[in-house]
């Protein structure tokens, strides 16, 4: 397994490098695919019954399964369109997508899933690779998604190159028995200072720490906090903003937790899950999708988990943030853009399709109309009979936009380095983030905002 993982990461980065070099050839080798898409734009109003053909869709496990479930309904509206959903591993999908786009569209599907934070990178590397959904009229749905999500779908000119699907509103998953044992009322935790105080109390009573972080390689908590404070690696103009006052405030708060011995330094994803289900930590601040992970890996802990919103930085500060999410794009070499668009439009804007994905596989919709469904008022038995889904829906609607940019992956690496510097080596937050900003500047040539 390990060796595969290594080859994969290697291959992906090399693939992207090679892609940079060969970027200019894309348009020539495209064999007319791109033109096809533009030319057919006027047909977007065509009657559903006139759209026909077979399309292939890529997605990874539960996402692929939930699209599969939607096909039947889709075909009631579009009886002549056949949809083949291919279930591909997440990293594998990116490897194949990158190789396919770099070689001009060979072997690619008509529609693919891409995570929101990777979109800008693909749009920048392969500007001719994606069908402009705005030309097919996707703009009319803009208001049906949270603004932060919709903005992330667009290229520099404001065109939709992807349709929003799932979203990762953040919250703090907490283990109820630990809170009861320590006598801590989760509702009383409104600020990160309250959280630290509660953490000290819980640790004294139960020995458990508060949050698992893979300190030297993942900065998820830092990103959620930055998002809360309305900042991110880059500002809205794409300038490097990782050393903003707000980002410093966020990292300093995590450093404070670490100094109070509330952070468990875990090893990667497996370490996070191990710490969670064995109660080395009493809480896990993460995106909504972590609910599925806990249910899968610890089914016997039903009723022991619950969720509260991320604590704020000030008394009435913002408690909403997002972590993760994915989207559907139509690839421009497709021979059947009308059918491909029809599927994307149906799947991302149909409340029923989105609710099936949520109820069966825990994929949280970004389509806000879905939040009115009765499911969101339901009390979830696994989660202490709390209406956690409506909590997450509130978070989704209040989340501020984040500008991921095409240099997201590079920034993430330096940000994790800065986190390690501040948490493991006891460095000053200001210096660590300033250094990260300098390195990102060197590597990307972007301006610094501070």
């Amino acid at each position, binding site marked *: 397994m390990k060796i595969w993982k290594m080859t994969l990461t290697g291959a992906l980065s090399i693939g992207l490098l090679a892609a940079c070099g060969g970027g200019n050839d894309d348009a020539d*080798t495209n064999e007319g695919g791109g033109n096809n898409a533009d030319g057919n734009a006027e047909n977007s109003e065509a009657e559903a019954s006139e759209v026909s053909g077979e399309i292939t869709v890529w997605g990874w496990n539960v996402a692929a399964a939930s699209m599969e479930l939607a096909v039947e309904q889709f075909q009631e509206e579009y009886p002549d369109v056949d949809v083949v959903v291919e279930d591909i591993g997440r990293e594998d999908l990116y490897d194949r997508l990158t190789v396919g786009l770099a*070689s001009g569209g060979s072997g690619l599907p008509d529609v693919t899933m891409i995570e929101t934070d990777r979109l800008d990178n693909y749009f920048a590397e392969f500007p001719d690779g994606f069908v402009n959904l705005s030309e097919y009229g996707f703009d009319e749905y803009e208001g049906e998604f949270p603004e932060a999500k919709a903005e992330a779908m667009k290229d520099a000119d404001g065109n939709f190159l992807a349709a929003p699907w799932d979203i990762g509103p953040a919250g703090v998953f907490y283990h109820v028995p630990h809170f009861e044992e320590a006598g801590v009322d989760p509702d009383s935790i409104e600020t990160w200072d309250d959280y630290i105080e509660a953490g000290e109390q819980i640790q004294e009573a139960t020995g458990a720490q508060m949050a698992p972080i893979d300190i030297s390689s993942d900065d998820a908590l830092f990103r959620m906090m930055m998002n809360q404070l309305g900042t991110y690696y880059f500002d809205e103009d794409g300038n490097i903003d990782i050393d903003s006052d707000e980002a410093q405030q966020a990292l300093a708060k995590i450093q404070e937790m670490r100094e109070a011995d509330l952070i468990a330094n875990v090893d990667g994803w497996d370490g996070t899950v191990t710490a969670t289900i064995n109660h080395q930590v009493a809480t896990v601040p993460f995106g909504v*999708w972590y609910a599925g992970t806990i249910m899968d890996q610890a089914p*016997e802990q039903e009723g022991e988990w619950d969720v509260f919103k991320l604590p704020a930085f000030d008394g009435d500060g913002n408690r909403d943030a997002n972590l993760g999410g994915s989207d559907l794009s139509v690839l421009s070499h497709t021979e059947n853009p009308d059918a491909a668009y029809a599927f994307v439009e149906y799947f991302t804007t149909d409340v029923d399709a989105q609710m099936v994905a949520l109820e069966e596989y825990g994929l949280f919709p970004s389509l806000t109309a879905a939040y009115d469904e009765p499911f969101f008022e339901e009390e979830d038995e696994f989660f202490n009979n709390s209406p956690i889904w409506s909590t997450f829906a509130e978070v989704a609607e209040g989340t501020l936009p984040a500008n991921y940019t095409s240099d997201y992956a590079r920034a993430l690496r330096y940000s994790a380095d800065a986190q390690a510097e501040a948490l493991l080596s006891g460095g000053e937050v200001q210096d660590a983030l300033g250094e990260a900003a300098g390195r990102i500047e060197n590597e990307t040539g972007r301006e610094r905002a501070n």
Partner: protein
Amino acid sequence: MTDKKKTSVIIRKILLYITLGIGVILSIFPFYWMFIGATNPSGAIFSVPPNLLPGDFLVENFTNLNENVGIIRVLMNSLIIALTFTFFAVLIAAAAGFAFAKYQFKGRNAIFFTLLLAIMIPYHVTLIPLFQMMADLGWLNTYRAVLLPNLAYPFAIFLMRQNMRSIPNSLLEAARVDGAGEFKIFFQIVLPTMRPALAAVAIFLFMFQWNNFLWPLVVLGDSDMYTLPVALSSLVGMSRVDYGQIMMGTTLSVLPIMIFFLLLQRQFISGILGGSVKE
């Protein structure tokens, strides 16, 4: 005196067996852990302290795995690809190695040197051009797209050439005097004497193709055509991974290699050492 010697021999033996025993445990434990994972539900792999006893989830994991990736079909793909590849690649490596070792021809060293250089090219560099070539030929999603690009495997040719050098020239000359043609010499004299080396190269190439991941991933788009590593990797989504199924699949993927190796291990070891010493 002899008693003392005896005890020292016994002590030495005990130490030796303890050391070997530790080695055995270290090398077998990962396989055991994999087997434990394959017989337990997914979450069990995370328990602290680790659960070291087999569970009763074997059948369920297999059923789930088969439902998800069609494991029988996938195993067949892997076997067909790996065996076909091994057969032809060994033949090509042996023939090329023989030519490099025993024939004098113009540019022999230049060609051999170029071949050695090819070993040093990281495969990532050739990935996209090669993929493009397969796409232009219309070969995506076929066995031949996986098989052909690696069929002349430089390292295997190099290994065969080193081994072929130990064949005495006089033997070949004697055969020629007796009227044997070059093909007859190759198939009836050279290959039988090279059996250990052939087995070593065969194991090496079989393992290479059996474990080969990135190239099959990229050229085999249809899940019906997946090889085992590609199919297993498709089980890893984002936040939801069924480790029971993955361990089940990994167990299945290790078995053929183990069988192949156990059958040929004697040849494997003597083959790797062959050619290293001139006798």
